[in-house]
């Protein structure tokens, strides 16, 4: 059996006295799009931070296709094939959109920057400084910076944050196509249930820093504790 694309064991992290992650195990099958949901403050961003090397974990290990990357910094993880986007848009405001993507592509020896600009509807903005583009364009640029390469595993922290419901769905469909075409394994943190249920084969539910449930969209929809903790009556 081949190694999981991304495999975490016993990940923990504390902020002062608050335990944001308490021993999380996670295995992503190569090529899958995994949804990660949970109420506000559940620890979703913290999990992405620890997986991507942004924040040190206080315990546990991370493997990428079998390679132990636990002690590596963000740059080394990107070279190993792990990329991420940010919940709060993280781009280079003063630089032209195209130049940013070139910068990202060059580092990993990628040639797909122009195509990706097209596919994410950013080509017309290539020469425009990112700060002068619309919010939705900036969100897609954040995504493009992570997707160029392509990386082997992609961690997306609420890529649709702040978009309208319609825009979110459009972005989700685009994302599914792009990931499928490139064979990228995706961990998708998303608040919008409709988006997650639409494009994810499996969903992991985080609550209070621990995994509450994991399964297919149908299983998660019916999971009594998930319904109680997160989906509430609205989804029932």
């Amino acid at each position, binding site marked *: 059996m081949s190694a999981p694309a991304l495999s975490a064991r016993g990940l923990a992290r504390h902020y002062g006295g608050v335990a944001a992650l308490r021993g999380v195990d996670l295995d992503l099958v190569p090529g899958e799009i995994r949804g990660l949901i949970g109420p506000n403050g559940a620890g979703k961003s913290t999990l992405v931070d620890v997986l*991507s090397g*942004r924040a040190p974990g206080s315990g546990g290990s991370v493997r990428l296709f079998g390679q132990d990357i636990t002690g590596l*910094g*963000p*740059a080394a993880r*990107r*070279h190993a094939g792990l*990329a*991420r986007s*940010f919940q709060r848009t*993280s*781009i*280079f*405001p*003063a*630089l032209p959109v195209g*130049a*940013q993507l*070139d*910068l*990202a592509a*060059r*580092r*990993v020896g990628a040639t797909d920057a122009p195509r990706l600009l097209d596919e994410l509807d950013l080509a017309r903005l290539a020469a425009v400084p990112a700060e002068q583009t619309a919010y939705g364009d900036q969100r897609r640029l954040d995504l493009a*910076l*992570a997707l160029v390469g392509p990386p082997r595993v992609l961690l997306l922290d609420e890529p649709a944050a702040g978009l309208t419901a319609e825009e979110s769905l459009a972005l989700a469909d685009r994302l599914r196509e792009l990931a499928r075409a490139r064979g990228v394994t995706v961990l998708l943190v998303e608040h919008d249930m409709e988006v997650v249920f639409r494009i994810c084969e499996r969903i992991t539910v985080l609550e209070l820093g621990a995994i509450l449930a994991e399964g297919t969209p149908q299983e998660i929809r019916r999971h009594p504790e998930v319904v109680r903790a997160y989906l509430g009556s609205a989804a029932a």
Partner: protein
Amino acid sequence: MSGAGRIAAGALATAAAGPAIAALVPPGVLLSLLAQACIYAILALSVGVLARQNGMVSFGHAAMFGAGAYLAGIGLGAPGLLPAEAALPLAVLAVAAVCFGLGLIVVRVHGIAFAMLTLALGQACFEAANKARGVTGGADGLTVALPREIFGLPAATFQWAEGMFLIAWLAMVALAALAALLARSRFGLLTEAIRENEERARFLGYGTVLPRAAVFALSGGIAAAGGVLYVLYNGFVSPETVHWSVSGSALIMALLGGTRTVWGPLAGAAVYFLLREQLVEVTERWLGLLGILLVLVMVFLPDGLSGLPRRLRRQRGAEA
């Protein structure tokens, strides 16, 4: 024309303007002032490079300027040891090398903390220049006798207003062109990206400390080159040259002109010296007026005077 071609053409045209200026300006005090202005413009350029590529505001660049001057002075004072032709470039390289090493440490500090750090390190250098009497001559300063010839030019050329003006002008243009080429290179783009968002640059796979330290070294080297010209022209350097008020003046020049463009600090130095000369005639209060101008520019023209054309263009665009 490509960007690099434009820079080269602009640099050549500006360089050619030097002799014209020297011919037009009556020799004497004004030309001597212009020579000093070019030397300080190089210091302002170095402050601007650091601000533009690394987003760092330095209150301590007089230390690099002074170090270049002292090292060159010491090298020229021991002609048996090194020919002047080697001592002068070595002074610049030594400062750049030290700045690179220092840069590996200091570029981890950002914003106001970096401004204060450079102020502290600069003042430490000022005190060291005062205390190390054996090497620097202490508070009395270091008087430097030039050898008869340097790079085939008679020593008098360097201490004659017209000669130094031309040399400093050409050096200024060459260093600005170098900075401009760097800015539009891949390396320049990378450092700008790190300036804009260091964390994201790391997540794109880039190490961020080395490029920032390299910019710090380049900036230090440019400042040192200014210092070398300073000691050649004045034949003297003292701790006053290293004082933080000199760093402050260079920073004012850079910010007045604006650090968004490479040439902004040069324009700022021109404004600084013109203002000083013009205002001194009518009022002694030029420093206060300079302070007011600095405040107004920072509040209303954050990109400095060199950002003005762009701003106007944009405004016109918005109205159209």
